[in-house]
């Protein structure tokens, strides 16, 4: 009975998030348009190999889309006064957060699947390992949706504050994770930073699945993404418990 109610609360929360929040402008601006513009700013006017950089672009678009709505859901709910009511339903903080993460992951998966399909169809990108590509898709979306939710956990009811924090965390990550500079060309302290970033493992995983040189084994890459997902989820719960009353 208990697990049935818990599962239902996850599914209904995911459904609710998708229905209500994915139409909102900040989600599309920060989740989809921004990575496209960033990539175009980097790519246009330079003689770069499309196949070499496409996995990084795919990873970046997944990263931005999966983590775009998570930082906003709880502040929006607190601002609208729906958060307190939600907690009185048969949900727990954990099932609510899992629901939010799944919603982010589904959004990220849909958008990045479109990006991948466009790459394969129009840029002649070849998939060398479809199963690994799928596994990295799943692990990456969960990991970065969990990161998005973590960013909302310490916030109150002002979405713009969360967006500032979100930008502060997400933008540096794309510059240290092998998106614009291939992992093999990063040395010294930069390499340590790169290996501390979960995005690096997604970029590297996509590299190996799409026929570009990779540096970390696929198994370790997926394991790191899963461990980061669990870490982000755990931290979200701890911070949410501590900040539950903030903004209510």
């Amino acid at each position: 009975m208990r697990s049935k109610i818990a599962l239902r609360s996850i599914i209904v929360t995911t459904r609710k998030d998708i229905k209500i929040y994915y139409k909102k402008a900040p989600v599309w601006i920060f989740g989809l348009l921004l990575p496209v513009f960033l990539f175009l700013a980097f790519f246009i006017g330079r003689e770069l190999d499309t196949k070499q950089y496409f996995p990084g672009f795919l990873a970046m678009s997944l990263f931005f889309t999966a983590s775009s709505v998570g930082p906003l859901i709880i502040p929006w709910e607190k601002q609208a006064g729906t958060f307190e009511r939600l907690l009185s339903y048969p949900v727990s903080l954990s099932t609510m957060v899992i629901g939010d993460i799944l919603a982010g992951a589904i959004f990220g998966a849909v958008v990045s699947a479109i990006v991948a399909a466009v790459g394969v169809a129009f840029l002649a990108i070849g998939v060398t390992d479809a199963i690994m590509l799928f596994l990295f898709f799943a692990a990456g979306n969960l990991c970065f949706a969990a990161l998005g939710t973590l960013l909302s956990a310490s916030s109150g009811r002002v979405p713009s504050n969360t967006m500032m924090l979100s930008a502060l965390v997400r933008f540096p990550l794309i510059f240290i994770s092998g998106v614009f500079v291939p992992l093999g060309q990063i040395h010294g302290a930069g390499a340590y930073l790169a290996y501390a970033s979960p995005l690096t493992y997604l970029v590297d995983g996509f590299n190996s699945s799409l026929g570009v040189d990779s540096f970390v084994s696929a198994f370790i890459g997926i394991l790191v993404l899963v461990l980061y997902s669990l870490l982000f989820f755990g931290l979200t719960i701890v911070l949410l418990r501590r900040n539950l009353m903030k903004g209510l």
Partner: protein
Amino acid sequence: MEDGGVIQIGGIEAAGLVKHFGDIAAVDDVSFSVGGAEFFGLLGPNGAGKTTTIRLMTGILRPDAGNITIDGIDLLAEPFDAKMRIGAVPEVGNIYADLSAMENLDLVGRYYGLSKEERRLRSKTLLETLSLWDRRDDLIRKYSKGMRQRVSVACALIHEPPVLFLDEPTEGLDVQSRRIIIDLVKQMNRKGSSVILTTHNIEEASRLCERVCIINHGKIITISSPEQLRMAYEKNLAVEVSFNGKIDRCLLEECAPGKIEEWGDKFRLHTDDPDKTIQKIMEVRREHNLRIVSIQTVGPSLEDVFVKLTGGIK
């Protein structure tokens, strides 16, 4: 359990509830029980601990100490099962402005595991009762405050809970919305649900509640029926009088030993001897050639008792 034809399905027990925010004890050793099908009021000034108590009992916050039982189920040990039996209109309990009334009810029904048919039928019944059926597909953002609150109450009732928590449900509403909501809640109560109501409207609490709990500084001051509370303060009598024209209150100062209050076109003279006070009012009337429009002796209202118990008006 049955009592006079009402099936008693609810029941709440709170034992030794404690909740601190930093060094402040928002709720300090609060214990009470509410029977099945009982209408119970939780009264107190702002910051007394009412909302925190409701948040603890609806599973929104976890107490630092104490136990809560909802319809026989331990809320802390089995929160999912216990919450299935709760309907709550929290103090900040809005609904989704980007959804319609039907969509909001459908969403809440899903959380409680209602089938599609149940969700549809109950939403229809509730929205018809609340006079919102014609607006069922409009987005909530287009609703007035009263209409939103009606939908909010409907969301708390869609799963027909045995226990209902209402935190200031009629605060700031128009008369029509307030009546519609109160009628619906009374109807649920008659069907057997326990209701815990917090309100600033003491007359409303007096009219609706079988028992009230007065809470201040996180502690319970008293729990009793409104009538018993009034009886306990019966010696605090007053005479209310209104004249055909405006008079200076100084004229009445000799009529009663207690304080004199102006309530609209009436004067309320606090006294322990109403007969003597009325005689003196008659003398004033004769001397100044006034005409009395109405005169009556009144006992203490629940509001008087409340003010007395919570330390008066500061």
